[in-house]
């Protein structure tokens, strides 16, 4: 079952007079249950690719299909609701709400969907448990370590049971030990619960366990490798 399909996607940025080509003709399809690493040097277009797949950026040309439907010119509110329903995001710098506790942060995406507080709380606690953070449910993010914050962020990404979890360099701000733990967690969630992950990294040490590696270079896919 294909979740997302990209065909000949280009992305150009305009910086004054000059044009930056961030993506040049990328085609890629993501199937349910995949665990895909996007690997590439800095500036190779990893973030751009993930943002387009995550519906938070638009391609300059080419098509993007989600669940077989072309996303293209959908109005902003529709895309927003698609993100809410199908996507989960995990950011390099965690991006937790500083004024909310870990539990409230995890509850947030559900409450945005209109789920009642009681139900959201129950689901959020389950997710915190699955990332091993249930003891820290009532802590604010500033009281947590980087690795702990990222685990809370993963719980927040999981809580809506998204089709696809998009993680842009989820380990870049972590030391190697914590990075490995986050990787372990992602692999475990992928294997045991079949959650689809798409993550980017430029750390070669983290990608040996991954089922599929997409190599990006200057905005083009140079290699799409399946283990």
């Amino acid at each position, binding site marked *: 079952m294909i979740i997302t399909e990209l065909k000949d996607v280009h992305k150009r940025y305009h910086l004054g007079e000059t044009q930056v080509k961030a993506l040049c003709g990328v085609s890629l399809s993501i199937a349910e249950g995949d665990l895909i690493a996007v690997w590439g040097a800095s500036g190779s277009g990893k973030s751009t690719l993930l943002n387009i797949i995550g519906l938070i*950026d638009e391609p300059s040309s080419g098509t993007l299909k989600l669940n077989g439907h072309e996303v293209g010119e959908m109005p902003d509110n529709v895309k927003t*609701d698609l*993100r*809410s329903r199908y996507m*989960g995001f995990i950011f390099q710098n965690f*991006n937790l*709400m500083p004024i*909310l506790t870990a539990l409230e942060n995890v509850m947030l995406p559900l409450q*945005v969907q209109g789920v009642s507080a009681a139900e959201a709380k129950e689901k959020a606690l389950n997710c915190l448990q699955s990332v091993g953070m249930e003891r820290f449910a009532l802590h604010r993010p500033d009281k947590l370590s980087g690795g702990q914050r990222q685990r809370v962020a993963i719980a*927040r990404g999981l809580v809506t049971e998204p089709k696809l979890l998009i993680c842009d360099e989820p380990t870049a701000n972590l030391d190697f030990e914590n990075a490995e733990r986050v990787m372990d967690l992602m692999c475990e969630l992928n294997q045991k619960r079949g959650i689809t992950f798409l993550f980017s990294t430029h750390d070669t040490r983290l990608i040996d366990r991954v089922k599929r590696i997409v190599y990006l270079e200057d905005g083009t896919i140079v290699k799409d490798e399946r283990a």
Partner: protein
Amino acid sequence: MMWLKFALRNIYKNRRRSAATILAVALGFCSISLFHGYTQETYAGVATSIIHGGGVGHLTVFKKGFSERGRLEPEKYLFNQQEIKQIQTLVNALPQVMLATPRLNLSGLISNGKTSTIFLAQGVVPDEDKQLRGEFISKEGGLDSATPSAVQMASDLATILELEAGDNAVIMGNTFSGMVNALDVDVRNTYNTGVDATNDKFIRMPLAHAQLFYDTQGADKLVVLLDDIQHISTVKSQIQTLAKQQGLDIEIKRWDELASFYHQLKAMFDMIFLFIFTIVIVVAVMSVINTMSMTVMERTREIGTLRAIGVRRSGIKWLFSVEGGVLGSLGCTLGIVMTILIHYLIKSMALTFTPPSSTAEVTLNVQLDIGFMLILSLLLMLLALLSAFFPAKRAAKSTIVDALGHV
């Protein structure tokens, strides 16, 4: 609900900045509502001093045409005794009417034997005048119908003529039939009219003596006192209808039509109020705009994150608008508390001052106008909400990628 939690926590998180904003709104609220209370108090005070102190009453009944031609041909616009009775009976039948008393104004020369000057006099029915003036009656007591020639003299006039209580003088003028007439008057006491322009001319005397001066039994007006200033319009139209039914040709003036000074004063105060109101509102709103623009900017990444996890643009606008509105309402709440405290503080200090073009001291007082404060709160809350709405709208419009900080 969720946005309210966000708002309250963020306000608490930036409590120093929030406190400054809340204080700015509260001070603005407080100064506006206090000044409003002061103007209301002034209007009410001036109204009472005109109606009771000045003896203008709430309504005055004239013969039709008096206001245009009465000055030139006063004798033509006089009510005779029978008409006075008729109007009194008619007016007194209305439950809101406390009193309807005849008056006769005169003018002429007054002399102390050596020098003379012009005077303006009001002939009043002493007992009824006391009822009209109530607490405004001078300490020395009012007029007495038993001694019709004993008059009250405005203090500057007494000074000019070098007269004191107990002295006498002569008033001179023409009767309505054109004869020269002179009458003795005894200065019973002096009083302050409260206005420089009249304090050197006025005399008050019993109606009987005034009628003697003009050699008439009539009166040029009837002053009507009501139980409440609110009833003016109803009573005015009721009297008009009744008079028409009885074939009386009259015109009725309200107290404020006879004291145009009141409207000038009110217009001036309203202008000052509008001026202060505008400045204060602008300052308070600028403070909220400043705070909320800063908040929105600082939380750009948060906006990007929220948008990524499925919050619509409208949600972002709500998030910050609620925060602005909460800041505004906290400011207004504090403002109401401050206003009430200052109100009682002023009351307890019993400050006095002398208002412009007046010669008597007045106690400073500030009314508490709850209705006005509620409207002002609503207005300020709405403005605070809008001050947050526009920066939030701008932020919600920018792309998520940009908001997330050039990922």
